[in-house]
């Protein structure tokens, strides 16, 4: 088992290495470089005449005159050794400062969404599979189609509209005004949780629809297995048969797709965050792309991907524990 974990960990490192190169390429893609944009941003409108020499100086200050592979080395080296993601010119401070607590809010949103998705999808899908062809089953099929067809950001807009017109209150933001600047307290945490409900529902929307489909399909497969009939033939009570045999196996595909779900949530997060006004990484990512603040964008893209890769790693290992057939083949 240890060898299996080490193998997977090595895979994680290799993936992250290649991902970091891709992220770096994306950071370098926009026309012009950091120095140009820095100079433009800093001096435009101030009347100062920026010469080519000034830009050259800025370039030297930031080490931008070096070849690309050296700059990549500096960038990734700073991240690994000092956890330093570079400078944000839009905010004129370090990337770490800009990201700050947005990271934890992002993770809080992710966590709430995942919990909500699994709490909803697994029992509902199992119920639908057991009561196959019932009205509830058909209703769920319709819902899962809708879940796939109605993009999350449209759902967010819809919920905004409903909350404003019917409840006369906004669902945006992560904190009520009175807690915005307040120090952390139980009340503030509760306030945060209250505000996390809507984003979590919006983000869990399509993930839940998708998971219901997968779990239901696996469950239907498993229900027809001979092992279930064999367990019934042993006189095991029906509820125990269902829980111990098909349900136990229907959990496996859920575990194996945790990374995929995180990927999906992070993919949808920026736009939902923009609509709902959530101060987290996705919204900042859009802003930094629009400003071409590429160190911030790169840092966020790297972080989001890092969480996905870590989740993949965790789900691989969890699956090996859950399914005895896996560790035998590869460990």
């Amino acid at each position, binding site marked *: 088992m240890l060898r299996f974990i080490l193998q997977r960990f090595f895979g994680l490192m290799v993936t992250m290495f*290649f*991902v970091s190169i891709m992220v770096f390429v994306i950071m370098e893609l*926009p026309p012009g470089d950091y120095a140009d944009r820095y100079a433009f941003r800093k001096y435009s409108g101030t009347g100062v005449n920026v010469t080519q020499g000034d830009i050259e100086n800025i370039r030297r200050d930031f080490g931008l005159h070096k070849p690309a592979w050296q700059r990549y080395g500096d960038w990734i080296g700073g991240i690994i050794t000092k956890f330093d993601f570079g400078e944000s010119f839009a905010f004129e401070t370090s990337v770490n400062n800009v990201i700050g607590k947005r990271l934890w809010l992002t993770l809080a949103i992710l966590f709430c969404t995942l919990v909500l998705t699994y709490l909803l999808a697994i029992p509902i899908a199992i119920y639908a599979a057991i009561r196959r062809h019932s009205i509830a089953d058909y209703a769920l099929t319709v819902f899962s189609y809708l879940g796939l067809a109605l993009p999350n950001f449209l759902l967010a*807009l819809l919920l905004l509209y409903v909350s*404003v017109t019917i409840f006369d209150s906004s669902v945006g933001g992560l904190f009520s005004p009175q807690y915005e600047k307040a120090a952390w307290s139980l009340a503030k945490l509760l306030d945060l949780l209250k505000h996390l409900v809507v984003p979590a529902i919006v983000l869990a929307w399509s993930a839940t629809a998708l998971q219901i489909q997968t779990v239901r399909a696996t469950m239907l497969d498993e229900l027809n297995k001979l092992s279930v009939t064999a367990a019934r033939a042993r006189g095991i009570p029906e509820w125990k048969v269902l829980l111990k045999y098909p349900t136990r196996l229907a959990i496996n595909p859920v575990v194996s797709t945790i990374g995929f779900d995180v990927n999906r949530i992070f*993919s949808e997060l920026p736009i939902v965050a923009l609509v709902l006004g959530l101060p987290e990484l996705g919204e900042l990512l859009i802003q930094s*792309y629009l400003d*071409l603040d590429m160190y911030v964008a790169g840092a966020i893209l790297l972080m989001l*991907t890092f969480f996905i890769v870590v989740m993949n790693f965790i789900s691989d290992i969890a699956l090996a524990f859950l399914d005895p057939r896996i560790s035998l083949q590869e460990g």
Partner: protein
Amino acid sequence: MDKTTTLNNDVNLSAEEPEIDQNNKSHEDIKYYTASQWQLVWWRFRRHKLAMVGAGVLLIMVIFGAFADFIGPYSITTRDRSYIMGPPQMPLLSDQKGFSLRPFVHGIKTSRDPVTLRKIATVDPETRRYMQFFVTGSSYKLFGIFDMETHLFGLEQGRLHLFGTDELGRDIFSRTLHATGTSLSIGILGVLVAFVLALIIGGVAGYFGGKIDYLIQRITEIVRVIPVIPLYMGLAAAFPKEWSNMQVYFAMTLIFGLIGWPTLARRTRSHLLGQRGEDYVMAAELSGASAARIIGKHLLPSFTSYIIVDLVISFPYMILSETALSFIGLGLRPPSVSWGILLQDAQNIRAIEQAPWLFLPAAFVVIAVLAFTLLGDGLRDAADPYSVSNH
């Protein structure tokens, strides 16, 4: 599996009385057994009512998009200054004055708000404006070739806004039709690019195999780890600001194709590899068929239907990606119209509070994605006509 049949004691049950077989098979069975694969696919697809609905809806959307200039009464930039942020107008057949065989809408009266001095449009139930068909309106070039001035419908006097107007007084219905054309065509082009790339790269991987195959596999795996929309956004952010909308349009289709091909290539590859080991391929080889004949006659037909299904299924992702990118301002930019751009107007809460009809283009997005999903599901089931349906 260790499924060794005990030949020596097995009850042999080979059929030796063909007359019984023939009598029992009804006419329909014979038709079924002699039909070609594509006939079977078509019969099976027809049974999926929802997939047929999906196909019909998409056809209507394509027609809407292609003939947007003709069906839409106004151009995407025409501004109706007397009807700014006006709600949708529903053609009526009756009002308190009685019935009418010709559909009409009530006239609009504009007045100024005494406090804010803003123009307010109010419905005047006293006047009727009748609808006319094949009216002459603003000139346009259909498909960019034919000079035309005829529009499908209009009002005899004043303007008809089926979906209302935006804050500049532009007709949302006409704009939505044009946006349908843009968004669908980006989806179609994106899927085509992905398809061509998948065939080329998948073919290279399959042909050279070994290390190249392995390398391509690893690269696609790494690309798939990065969240898709943030990745698209990163690539779209790199578009130079001075690019024209046409350039952005093609660049976007290219990006969608570039990111979208691995899924297609993987499926094509795995279908090929899976079919390669099937008994019927072995049987064809043993009976002396050439490699070209096996691929052309046996392998390709076995998965062209799957490729079509995969293409249809990848459409919604392309459409949603385009909508999302344009929505946040990283995709197409005004004055072009696409579903995402139209929805930009509905981005802030004040706008949707005052003018919920700005949401109407969203219905098109949802319906299009739903139709593609239904169509894809029906096709997926029909694609394998020999499998036993579990419906």
